[in-house]
């Protein structure tokens, strides 16, 4: 399975990955439209870490043994046939156990609707996730692992 790998030594900290992630998961998939409208703006599936000049963007690792799917009461967090960890909003009851157990802290809560707001779905349906495609310095790459 191909996974996203982070080369933090080349992350320039521009956070464009987040911009593209948000727009990709919006209805319009248009950057300007997404950011100019207040309704259609999803939360990015990326957690950006910064300490001095070390910066990197972290997405769901799609763990082989994934604590989030185990912890989920309703199977809202599940693994598909391609070993990708996905989240079904319909089933989610907002217990946030997944957020508690995620070792990387990349699952974000939706405070308003008391649900899970966002998590990386590897841009399902696209060959290359948008964060990988648009990273200006190839700090985020898709690799066979």
């Amino acid at each position, binding site marked *: 399975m191909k996974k996203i790998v982070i*080369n933090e*030594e*080349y*992350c*320039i*900290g*521009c*956070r*464009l990955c*987040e*911009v*593209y992630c948000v727009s990709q998961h919006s209805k319009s998939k248009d*950057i*300007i439209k*997404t*950011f*100019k409208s207040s309704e259609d703006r999803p939360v990015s599936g990326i957690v950006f870490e910064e300490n001095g*000049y070390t910066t990197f963007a972290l997405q769901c690792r799609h763990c082989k043994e994934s604590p989030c799917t185990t912890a989920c009461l309703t199977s809202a967090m599940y693994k598909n046939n391609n070993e990708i960890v996905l989240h079904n909003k319909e089933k989610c009851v907002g217990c946030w156990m997944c957020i508690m157990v995620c070792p990387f802290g990349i699952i974000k809560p939706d405070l308003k609707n008391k649900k899970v707001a966002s998590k990386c779905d590897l841009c399902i349906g696209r060959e290359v996730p948008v964060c990988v495609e*648009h990273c*200006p*310095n*190839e*700090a985020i790459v898709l690799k066979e692992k």
Partner: protein
Amino acid sequence: MSKSKFRTDFKIVRDMEKCIKCQACARVCSNDAHVYDNESNSIISYNDKCVGCHFCEDLCPTGALTIKRNIPEIKFNSHWDSYSVYNIIKQAETGGVLLTGMGNDKPFKEYFDHIVLNASQVTNPSIDPLREPMELKTFIGKKPDKIELKYEPYKLEYNKPELKIINYKISTKMPPQLVLETPIMFSAMSYGSISLNAQKSLAKAATEFGTMWNTGEGGLHEDLKPYSKNVIVQVASGRFGVDIDYLESAAAVEIKIGQGAKPGIGGHLPGEKVDTEVSKTRFIPIGSDAISPAPHHDIYSIEDLKQLIYALKEATRYQKPVGVKIAAVHNIAPIATGAVRAGADFVVIDGMRGGTGAAPTVIRDNVGIPIELAIAVVDQRLRDEGIRQQASLIAAGGFRSSADIIKAIALGVDAVYIGTSALISLGCHLCQKCYTGKCNWGIATQDPYLTKRLNPEIGAKRAYNLLRAWSLEIKEMLGGMGINAIESLRGNREQLRGVGLSELELKLLGIKHAGEAW
């Protein structure tokens, strides 16, 4: 009187219809030209801080940013242009020497743009390089005048004239040669003046393509040892980084006398750029200024140069070519000849368009001669003296395209160095602010926030692509001339014609005017 606070060269135009306030520009600008204000949730751009490197423009995900030239428009005056006026104002305020980076940007005559190439029509066939062999292999080093063989007599049959080299023994000793797959090498740019990632990009590209890169006067960093088969190491007036390992690990050694961008001027790497790694590589204390004196203080004459050449040859046991790099100045022909007679295996001439990390503007813009003329006179002088074979000739100084390079080769050089164009391939947009150490592209800086912006994998690919693209273009042009080996174009000025050049210029360049047949 009021001080000029806002001296702007550029205007940042932000299209608010498009700006999504993602703050990428504010995060990356090393000059703080864009700043995000939390209170007002807006990005404020400061024109006076913009250097015109176009990093934010390239990064902006919506194309909301445009950086425009914005020279203050004083009343039109063809003599007192705003450049001169503002320079005076700047100096009146600071009392200092104006500094700049990269090459001469003044509108001197571009001789390359006044030279055109030939192509075959009817009387000899042109060659398609995509389908037939086309050779760019180049050797740098002293060439013997002739080959001496010991023959074993054998019978020749004229219908089977296969050359049986088993019958020959070569008694000529071949001096050390550098083998290049293309006559294009990367110029000397030191670690210190450029980042390790920039050097690594060039080193990797040169190694993969089969050409050379050059350490400049900054030593050879440990991480670049894997690329030392393709490195020319420099020995310059500061002798930074020079020890026996340095000399031994290299493919060739180059004594740097001068640089085209600043002939007669030394170098100064400010102490703040000398971090742990630079200090280890240059063999100097952390934080100390690295000063390369204007002359070598052990070379005050041509015979002193000879001593250094032979000292380096001795040190490398005559296994490596030792060359000399000099800036193209008025007396370039005799100086280059002198260097050859002093034992140099190759001579590098660096023209007035050559780049630099830092130089006094007045020197960069006013000292030296155009590389085209320098190549022509040096090659001719070496031939007149019958010593052209004794050394290879390399030119440097502002080659913008494969056309410039092929013209330089036809004028007589063996190979060229590219510096500025190599850096452009890595991202450089010629903002000429290398000396500030704030290079947004991660090239001319040691700031860890900035150096990581140049991913050497990407850099190497791009630099490699440039070598590949230019080599292909050179092959196309060679094929058009009906030539299938670069050595048949080298010094073949018959393939060049001048357009709009005076008789004297043509004479110096050794070419005919367009319209003249052979």
